[in-house]
């Protein structure tokens, strides 16, 4: 177990480094200037500004300076478009994204897993058919269609719900439903598949033959193994929620990280872009690791196999 953990941590560092390298060189390859809003300044002033941000140095020095600053000073650079430290922007907007993401994840698990179990238990019945069709519909309707529709048909008619905005408790409801829907649908499909596979195994037949009640068969014998595919999906699900939040934050005007990311890409704000990419990457690496650990905890077979395949 410790060896597995160390291996995965090292891999996580490697992932972040690869992400940094790719983002760094891509952002350098984007032609155009980061300071276009200040067009009327003299060349000299511009050179000074570039110097202030350390953009005058050779590219390899810049490439090494950024990770060095993160490790030694905890600094993610200063946003060239906002003039504020990137870390400030992250700490200000991340809590909103996190709350939204967690609520969406909670919604997805709370809806998706029970539907999946129900479908599996009533396999090939009309319930199964209806649930899986709804799940497929959930996967295929994009959040940017669901979101506006919820705004106009739900938020506008129920008092207390606002069409867009952030700040009150009830404002979380519609964005997290919109965001969590796709993951809920995937979770339902995965749970159904996982449980069906376990239900076909010998020990379940033995349990049934011994006269264990159907509910106990599901709760005690099937759930633990049957939920594994769904749990393995939680890491990627978190990634999906974060990328999905770009859209949902735009629709419901949530002051989260997504909008900053899109702005950074369009204004060629390379420090903001690097900082946000690394932060997203870090979150996803951590979530994947947690999902792996949880899988290992639930499934002893995974615990001792090392690496992949």
């Amino acid at each position: 177990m410790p060896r597995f953990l160390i291996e995965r941590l090292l891999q996580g560092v490697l992932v972040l480094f690869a992400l940094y390298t790719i983002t760094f060189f891509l952002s350098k390859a984007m032609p155009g200037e980061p300071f276009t809003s200040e067009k009327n300044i003299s060349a000299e002033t511009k050179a000074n500004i570039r110097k202030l941000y350390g953009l005058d140095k050779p590219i390899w020095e810049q490439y090494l300076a950024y990770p060095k600053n993160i490790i030694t000073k905890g600094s993610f650079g200063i946003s060239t478009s906002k003039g504020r430290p990137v870390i400030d922007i992250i700490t200000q907007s991340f809590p909103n994204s996190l709350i939204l993401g967690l609520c969406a994840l909670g919604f997805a698990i709370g809806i998706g897993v029970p539907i999946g179990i129900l479908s599996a238990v009533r396999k090939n019945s009309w319930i199964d058919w209806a649930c899986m069709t709804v799940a497929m519909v959930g996967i295929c309707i994009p959040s940017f269609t669901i979101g506006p529709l919820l705004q106009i048909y739900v938020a506008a008619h129920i008092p207390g719900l606002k069409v867009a905005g952030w700040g009150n408790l009830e404002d979380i409801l519609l964005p997290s439903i919109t965001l969590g829907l796709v993951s809920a649908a995937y979770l339902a499909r995965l749970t159904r598949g996982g449980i069906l596979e376990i239900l076909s195994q010998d020990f379940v037949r033995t349990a049934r033959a011994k006269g264990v009640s159907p509910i106990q068969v599901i709760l005690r014998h099937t759930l633990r193994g049957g939920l594994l595919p769904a749990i393995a999906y939680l890491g990627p699900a978190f990634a999906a929620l974060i990328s999905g939040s770009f859209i949902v934050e735009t629709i419901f005007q949530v002051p989260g990280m997504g909008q900053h990311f899109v702005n950074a890409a369009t204004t060629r704000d390379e420090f903001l872009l690097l900082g946000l990419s690394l932060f997203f990457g870090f979150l996803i690496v951590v979530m994947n690791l947690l999902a792996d650990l949880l899988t290992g905890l639930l499934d002893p077979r995974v615990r001792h196999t090392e690496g992949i395949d």
Partner: protein
Amino acid sequence: MTEQPSTVSQGSSLWKDARSRMAKNKFAMGGLWVIVAMFSLCFICAWFCTDPNQVNLTNKFAPSSIEHWFGTDALGRDLFARILYGGQVSILVGLIATSVSVAIGIVYGAISGFAGGRTDAIMMRIVDTLLAIPFLVLVIVLQATLSDWSGDATRWIVENFNWDKEFTGRLTNVVPLFFALGLLGWLTLSRIVRAQVMSIKEREFVEAAVALGYSKGRILFRHIIPNILGPTVVYSTLTVPGFIMYEAILSFLGLGVESPNSSWGVLIKEGANFLETEVQLLLLPGLFFSLTLFSLNFLGDGLRDALDVKAAKD
């Protein structure tokens, strides 16, 4: 992955089996017909439609009529024509990005699986690393980079070849998206290819080719890859809806296809602006989009089940 006996060697019966299994799957067949209908609508019927970019400010938000089946949008453009032309872009993004990623994925996965040993381990670790990187983050950055280059390319083509400026501009606005998605989308596919190559390289005909003294490259490209092509292409149908979705996400965020070009993502984005009064501007493109994705998913699932393509690790 050493099982899957002799499916491929009995070429004709594999496809025959698959076809009969496919025909029994009502969802998959339904999906297939919807896709066929959608393709013919977008690529054939669109030629008979009115110009999707014809602005008519005196006829804004017209209700549906014989002239404009779905009515008109905020600039008086025919919504039906815009949906069909938008469908061309969305479907092309799905198909071209898939082709690019299949091409990369097959070569990469086949080399990795065929070489085995340390080369294989390193190549697969690279894939693992790239898979852990948030996809949308990379696509956004790569798309931004590519579209700046393609802006230069537009200027160059217009200056040197006298191409129509508007047409070239529209073309070069879409092309970066194809490649940004395709260049990053091959990772899962390469794993599937690798698993298949590993099971095929143990077979007698490969042994025979080795015994005949053929070069590794020849064995790989002439004997192994043709045998895995079918199942791989089938599996790749499952990635098409994903690419279409990413196109829509990027366009919705204003980072993909731009107006006056239309794509389903652009139309949904435009429609969302007039939600309170003109909900059909959002609903109709959304319906076409969802229906296509729905059918593609069913079709892909059905094809995969029919051919029993197994992924090494999903």
